[in-house]
């Protein structure tokens, strides 16, 4: 048995590193992954820290099961205070890096401070090296990986790195690993860039030990087999890009910056067509039978030589949202975003916002005469990507994200700045998916489908998805808790349908790995704790009820066509659902967490610290 989770604390300013042990209660309460990175963020981020200053820590953690054969466990979570939202920023990635990192013997890293010059960190099992990265500065994410591997002379070295976007603190820069995977959302790459930390390279050669090896292996092998069955077929064969036509038909495919929810060019950018025309093969994270990463190649024409991975979110954001109905430039854009280190969702939403600004004559003064984004103009979109990453011209404005960009441009452009809490919205139309609208409005990391997953409710057939009503609160809380549990264990959401009883079976996996007692009930509570912890962090950073809202467009512009024609989102409709949600969570009518609630969840330490911060504010205000 291992002595719990080992934590590596890195101080970039002092080029020093120390090893600590994660308090066992953190693992019992928050499991690992997202739960653990946010718990560590709570400890290491001083209240009110500047997201792009040295005080904001950048935290990484795997789940307890990483490094074992448990299918889809080879993932990691990253957190910091988000430069987009000013609230909790957390993101997941997966792949060989996660496995190699766990095999160094560490489960988590906290990176503090700021390096005086560009630096990369090499964690070689127990040994931490600080190495100059000046020669890597300005290079693409994957190129950086290759150069580091070459420099260290070992192809087993795995690298997490930022591209130029992170270096230039583009507020939605991502952190990439293994060439094709990204901790994409909430701008964690900008935090890494602000620390002048180009990359974290790892070489792990240690075997992960678990509490009950034989049983865990047995259960894992069974799950591997189920993971090859029909429950994962959607992810294995077509991939999530299959959503394009489905959502289009359901009036839920955001098009031309959410001006409409159907896209006339949908067939041309459909997952089905992509599969028939450009699909090459799939790749998997370690120990995963699903292999959801779909690799595409363009072998002829203007974009010949393009090699890219595409999922639904990237396709929606770089395609229909920008009115683009041609796959080769979309694939090229996805490849460029990965190289530059840009989150595809936020990038697409920022460009669509700009396209609408030009459409309405709002941005004419900026970058006059230069190219400008326009719906359907893929050449302009492609040319804008490096400009965003390097913050040149209009790119500098868009690099701020649509919340800040629209606030600085004004002229009503806030109306079509499609974000929640500063995080750009994902590819699901909230006006025709009303439970999702609730999830997006209340989500702690802002406009995010992955942490809320409330569209599962809208698609379940048990509710009227066009109407928000009382009763959605508990349902949205339930999908959010489940997502928090999976993201903390960590198990991939794509394996969720392979379980007969997800909570009970994954509690068993967790127990067999850690030796800690767990069951379905305890795991549900852990999910609730993670959601409450994230909320507590936001409250600590100044969250108020007004932050739980959605862009004005959704309230005032009815959808012009499709099955959702004429539908908009009522302000009262949303407020009603939000109140219902707060109640389901046991929060106050203002959305604050009562101390009693936190204590009930065994989070007395958080309650006490939250009170301290509050009292401090009050004293300050006097």
């Amino acid at each position, binding site marked *: 048995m291992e002595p719990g989770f080992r934590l590596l604390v890195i101080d970039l300013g002092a080029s020093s590193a120390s090893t600590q042990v994660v308090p066992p209660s953190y693992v019992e309460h928050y499991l690992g992954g997202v739960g653990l990175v946010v718990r560590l963020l709570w400890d290491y981020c001083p209240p009110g820290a500047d997201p792009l200053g040295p005080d904001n820590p950048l935290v990484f953690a795997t789940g307890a099961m990483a*490094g074992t054969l448990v299918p889809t466990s080879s993932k990691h979570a990253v957190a910091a205070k988000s430069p987009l939202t000013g609230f909790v920023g957390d993101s997941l990635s997966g792949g060989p890096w996660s496995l190699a990192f766990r095999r160094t013997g560490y489960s988590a890293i906290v990176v503090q401070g700021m390096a005086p010059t560009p630096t990369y960190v090499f964690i070689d099992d127990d040994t931490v090296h600080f190495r100059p990265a000046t020669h890597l500065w300005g290079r693409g994410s994957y190129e950086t990986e290759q150069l580091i591997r070459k420099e260290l002379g070992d192809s087993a070295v795995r690298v997490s790195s930022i591209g130029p976007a992170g270096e230039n603190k583009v507020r939605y820069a991502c952190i990439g690993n*293994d060439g094709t995977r990204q901790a994409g959302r909430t701008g964690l790459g900008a935090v890494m860039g602000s620390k002048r930390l180009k990359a974290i390279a790892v070489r792990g*050669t240690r075997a992960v030990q678990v509490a009950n090896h034989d049983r865990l292996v047995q259960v894992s092998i069974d799950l591997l087999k189920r993971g090859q069955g029909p429950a994962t077929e959607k992810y294995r064969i077509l991939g999530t890009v299959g959503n394009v036509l489905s959502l289009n038909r359901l009036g839920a495919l955001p098009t031309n910056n959410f001006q409409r929810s159907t896209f006339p060019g949908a067939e041309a950018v459909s997952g089905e067509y992509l599969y028939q025309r450009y699909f090459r*093969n799939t*790749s*998997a994270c370690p120990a995963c039978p699903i292999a959801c990463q779909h*690799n595409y190649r363009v072998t002829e024409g203007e974009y010949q030589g393009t090699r890219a991975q595409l999922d639904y979110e990237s396709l929606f954001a770089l395609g229909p949202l920008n009115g683009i109905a041609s796959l080769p430039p979309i694939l090229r854009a996805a490849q460029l975003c990965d190289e530059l280190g840009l989150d595809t969702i936020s990038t697409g939403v920022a460009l669509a916002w700009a396209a609408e600004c030009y459409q309405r004559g709002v941005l004419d003064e900026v970058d006059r005469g230069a190219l400008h984004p326009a719906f359907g103009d893929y050449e302009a979109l492609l040319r804008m990507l490096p400009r965003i990453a390097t913050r040149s011209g209009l790119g500098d404005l868009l690099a701020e994200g649509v919340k800040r960009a629209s606030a600085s441009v004004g002229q009503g452009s806030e109306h079509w700045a499609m974000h929640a809490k500063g995080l750009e919205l994902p590819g699901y139309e909230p006006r025709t998916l009303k439970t999702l609208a609730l999830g997006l409005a209340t989500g702690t990391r802002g406009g995010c489908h992955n942490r809320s997953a409330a569209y599962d409710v809208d698609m379940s057939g048990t509710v009227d998805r066009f109407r928000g009503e009382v009763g959605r609160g508990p349902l949205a809380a339930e999908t959010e808790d489940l997502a928090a549990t999976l993201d903390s264990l960590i198990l991939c959401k794509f394996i969720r349908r392979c379980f007969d009883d997800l909570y009970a079976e994954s509690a068993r996996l967790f127990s067999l790995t850690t030796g800690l007692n767990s069951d379905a009930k305890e795991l549900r509570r852990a999910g609730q704790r993670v959601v409450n912890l994230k909320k507590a962090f936001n409250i600590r950073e100044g969250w108020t009820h007004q932050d739980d809202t959605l862009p004005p467009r959704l309230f005032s512009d009815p959808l012009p066509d499709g099955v959702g024609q004429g539908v908009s989102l009522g302000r009262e409709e949303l407020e009603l659902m939000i109140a219902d949600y707060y109640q389901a969570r046991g929060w106050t009518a203002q959305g604050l967490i009562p101390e009693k609630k936190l204590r009930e969840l065994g989070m007395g330490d958080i309650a006490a610290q939250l009170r301290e911060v509050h009292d401090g504010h009050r004293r300050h205000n006097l």
Partner: protein
Amino acid sequence: MAIAAITCNPALCTGCQVCEFACALAKAKSFDLEIARIRTARPEPDQAVSIACRLCPSPPCVASCPRDALSQDPAKGIILLNKARCSGCGWCIEACEFGAIAMDPSTKSVVICDLCPDLPKPRCLELCPQQALSLSSPAQTAGRNRDRAARRELASP
């Protein structure tokens, strides 16, 4: 029976490394992938292939061993190690162009795929989620490739 080695079809391999886990489980009842006799290479982010001992008829590893610790089983083609003679110098690792030999730090000697003689079939073959692995003799591999080439040829107009 012809000599058949573990062969990976790169068109099916997703790089999931389950074969590495399978091998570590079969050989050490652990998740110690360092001693896996089959390893997954990812030369590009969208390409992967797993490689185990090729059972070369003229094995450079055997020839390279300065202490004659390695020999080849004439029937199955697997490389046999005389542990008492192995000094752990790693010369065989340098000689193997496939990177199919690993050093086991706990025994300070090398480990090579033995096709899991005690099991009905090699553990990696059994667990590969993509059925990308097979036991193939050179003739079988050539036959498969011929079939593939023929299909391509006949499919083109």
